[in-house]
């Protein structure tokens, strides 16, 4: 029987792929425990003298704890951005899924088309417009674009379609409930899993976003953590001393996100699949 044969070759190949996927992260982990001189003088994939504690305190203390500011900024931008986007997207998706109105098809088509657009394409036009109206540099220059995400609206529609039965809405209407009431107390609850998925996916996307902050922000204190790490690395060219901070800061920024993603895997995995398979 072919089925009972142990799949040795597949496993071997997969181990190889796994090594490729993991070793850069391993390098990051190992390197963050090294002093600057060990970083350059010892082999990258094996541990040397343990220096993690001092690296971490150095990273956190640098320039009056600016790293902690950056992490806080990332948390604020991601939370507020993803929350607003989720509300708007769930409402819009629900409206498109459950009401017939003129222009609905066109609106949905535009939504799908724009969900394929990469954010980078819009960064410059947004920058030009926002600098004209004086928004550049403020938190709004990030939040407002984050709130409008056609892909999340598309997800919102998919979730509304699949989780809110028409009969239930019909019954609630016959009972005399207003549409806002129906949305708030019935539909929103039924769509909660979808809403959480949208929130998580958008949270991650905003956390990782580099482009928009790079265009919009100029004050170091307002940077999210990825932009902060980039600006530190830029200084490596002048003073090599920053390498330690960049490496340790990178590791520290990855850990909370990874924990967040692994623990909520079920949600976002279904989200990216809905996006591509339908």
């Amino acid at each position, binding site marked *: 029987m072919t089925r009972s044969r142990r799949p040795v070759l*597949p496993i071997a190949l997969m181990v190889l792929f796994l090594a490729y996927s993991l070793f850069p992260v391993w390098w990051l982990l190992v390197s963050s425990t090294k002093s600057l001189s060990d970083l350059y003088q010892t082999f990258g994939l094996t541990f040397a003298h343990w220096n993690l504690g001092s690296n971490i305190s150095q990273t956190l203390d640098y320039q009056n704890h600016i790293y902690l500011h950056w992490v806080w900024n990332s948390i604020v931008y991601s939370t507020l951005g993803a929350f607003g986007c989720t509300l708007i997207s769930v*409402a819009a998706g629900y*409206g498109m899924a459950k*009401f017939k109105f003129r222009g609905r098809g066109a609106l949905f088509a535009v939504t799908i088309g724009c969900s394929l657009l990469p954010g980078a394409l819009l960064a410059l036009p947004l920058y030009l417009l926002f600098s004209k109206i004086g928004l550049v540099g403020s938190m709004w220059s990030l939040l407002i674009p984050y709130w*409008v995400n056609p892909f999340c609206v598309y997800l919102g529609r998919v979730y509304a379609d699949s989780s809110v039965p028409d009969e239930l809405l019909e019954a609630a209407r016959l009972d005399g409930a207003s549409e806002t009431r129906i949305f708030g107390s019935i539909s929103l609850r039924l769509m909660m899993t979808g809403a959480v998925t949208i929130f998580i996916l958008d949270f991650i996307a905003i956390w990782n976003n580099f482009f928009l902050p790079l265009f919009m922000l100029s004050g170091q204190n307002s940077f999210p953590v990825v932009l902060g790490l980039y600006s530190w690395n830029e200084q490596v060219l002048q003073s090599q001393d920053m390498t330690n901070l960049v490496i340790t800061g990178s590791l520290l920024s990855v850990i909370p996100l990874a924990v967040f993603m*692994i623990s909520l895997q079920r949600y976002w995995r279904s989200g990216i699949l809905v996006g591509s398979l339908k």
Partner: protein
Amino acid sequence: MSIGTISAGADTAPASPAPSGRNPRRGGARRSGAAKGWLFNLPYILGFLGVYVAPVVYAVWQSMEKQMRSGLGFGAPRTVFAGFGNFTTVFEDGGFWSSIVRVILIAVVEIPVVLGLALIMALLLDVVGRRTAKYFRLGFLVPYMVPGVVATLIWLYLYSPIASPFVSAAKHFGTTIDFFTSVTTYFSLGNVLVWEQIGFNMILISAALQAVPRELFEAARIDGAGEARIAWSVKVPAVRPVLVFTGMFSIIAMLQLFTEPIILRQLNPGAISTTFTPMQSIYTSTFSDLNYDYAAAMSVVLALVTGVLAFVFYRFTTRRAAA
């Protein structure tokens, strides 16, 4: 009925010949449906106008100006209307076009590599046991959990002449590696992209495979097909739509390539110029040259090129699938 009361006046889509009497079910539902549908979409539509339509219109308009930014926009409209002048310059800008050709060349190599490897991994995950697959899948997803900036920073150090374990290993064996020659730069950059994207694509393909009815494989097996044959003739065609979708998505994304080269540039400014990719040209024009009009014109051209390429790719792949 309470449905129609609030929205009766705010009905945006004029109700088609509504019956003069109150038709409680059909007519009422439709009228209120129109208004409520728009109402639920109102924040989105307003946001969309503000964040998508207005900036694009503004960018197009700005791309047709030349002596721009005379303080206030109105009052002294002395800004020279350049018509398509900026676009003529863009079309004659050899550096810009070679950056577009460059990212297309990178895409032509990198995207098949990513999709091919992701496909192989997904197919492998499909033949090993479910529990084994679960752990491997999580491991393959690790790169997806690392932000692009951090991933590039890690590889930057892995390529660095002083900190790289590869370089020190090569030195141990008496050779040298240079990750930033005129040729290896492309592989170094491509490798970062492959590393970042492979896990995500693998998950997509893997999910598509799991959606295929198992009986199909069983039937092929009974017909005497081996695992490799089943993979090639049954599984690959089944995930074809996903491959087309991610392929198109990757092309669009690749044209906007920016983060990875601009960070790798910090290690070796000589190998990656400030106009290495079209987005870098736009960024440089905006923040180094302060030539906003020209940056806007390049953005418009890049958007058009993106649209055309995505369309061509889509037509090409769907026609081949139909043939």
